[in-house]
């Protein structure tokens, strides 16, 4: 078997449009079990403050603290669960397709949502995390990859990570979007053990509230490119006429749902009438960047507004 399985063009276009790819149950059970053993388990309920409990857990876990900027290939001990996860062909292929070879580690963090008994013992409300975008205002065309790893089954009542597909290209300032409690089309991760989400760094998201009797774990790794993100995926399925325009608005048949142009111009349920079109434009601009082709267009959105005959 190949040591990496690169993404195909429709998956890359899906990532550009929606800001994420999801792989359910791709991490084998033995890696999930090793990971959960490596991180250790905090008490089910504690009167210590959350940050103190977290601090103790991180200090006691077998997961190393790693300097930002470390080459990803050297970040984790070879026999660790995360090194094995990153070496899975589908994972390695997705990482290389999105951020290229020789990517570097930015940071990782273990997110735990605690069951109600923990909050009752503390006397604080058990609430979900406000919607936010990670890091800070980021105006780059290049993007970082965030991998969310769910090492055990996540049920709806466990409050799996909430995210809003298609928000990744919005330029906002981290928690400034905390006012948005609910957005049409938001998703809550409910998944089998060993599920991975590959996210554009700009995705709006937040932790859910855990109403189950079990701890919920999610491990997030942020990875940065060191090369220009141009044609890093398996482009063998990119037809020679991939840039050819199609009839628009007045059409006689449904568009091919796997065609890159269709994927790049598919709306999200939360799109505003006018700015939804700007989202198409920004997706197309990112696709141009990834193709290395500044003339690419989908459904004439950019050609129309760039047309200035001399």
């Amino acid at each position, binding site marked *: 078997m190949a040591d990496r399985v690169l993404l195909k063009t429709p998956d890359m276009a899906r990532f550009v449009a929606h800001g994420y790819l999801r792989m359910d149950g791709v991490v084998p059970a033995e890696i999930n079990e090793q990971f959960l053993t490596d991180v250790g388990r905090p008490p089910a309920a504690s009167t210590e403050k959350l940050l103190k409990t977290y601090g103790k857990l991180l200090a006691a876990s077998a997961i190393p603290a790693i300097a930002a900027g470390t080459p990803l290939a050297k970040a984790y001990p070879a026999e660790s669960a995360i090194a094995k996860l990153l070496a899975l062909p589908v994972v390695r292929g997705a990482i290389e397709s999105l951020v290229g070879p020789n990517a570097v580690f930015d940071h990782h963090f273990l997110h735990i949502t605690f069951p109600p008994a923990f909050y009752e013992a503390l006397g604080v*409300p058990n609430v979900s995390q*406000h*919607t936010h975008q990670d890091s800070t205002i980021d105006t780059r065309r290049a993007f970082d990859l965030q991998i969310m790893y769910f090492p055990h089954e996540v049920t709806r009542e466990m409050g799996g990570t909430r995210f809003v597909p298609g928000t990744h290209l919005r330029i906002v300032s981290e928690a400034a979007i905390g006012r948005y*409690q*609910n957005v049409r089309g938001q998703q809550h991760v409910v998944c089998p053990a060993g599920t991975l989400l590959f996210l554009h760094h700009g995705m709006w998201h937040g932790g859910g*509230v855990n109403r189950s009797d079990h701890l919920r774990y999610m491990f997030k790794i942020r990875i940065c490119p060191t090369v220009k993100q141009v044609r890093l995926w398996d482009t063998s399925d990119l037809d020679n006429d991939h840039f050819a325009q199609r009839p628009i608005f007045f059409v006689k048949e449904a568009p091919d749902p796997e065609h890159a142009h269709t994927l790049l111009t598919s709306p999200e349920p*939360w799109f505003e009438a006018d700015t939804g079109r*700007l989202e198409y434009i920004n997706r197309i601009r990112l696709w141009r960047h990834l193709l290395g082709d500044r003339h690419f267009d989908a459904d004439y959105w950019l050609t129309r507004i760039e047309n200035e005959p001399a």
Partner: protein
Amino acid sequence: MAKRQKVLVLYLADSALDSGVVAWSQYDGTGITDHMAGDADEPPYRTGLAALRDGWRLIQASQLQPHAPGTEFTTSYLKYEFFFEQLVDVDG
């Protein structure tokens, strides 16, 4: 009887109050209900007008701003934000 404020924030698909709801938030000053991020996947009203017809009072609407040169295509915060309130009698 004292009065407490309930706040409903609706984000609409365009600047018209009868356009569809794309996002929403609720804050209940009476303490009777609690709302938080991710607590509902369907909006409480289909449009802003539907909220008016159910007794919510519009107290603020986002302005339409010209697009700053150079940032015409930048998308950022949700654009059509409408704040509503209800004043509710409570004991105390």
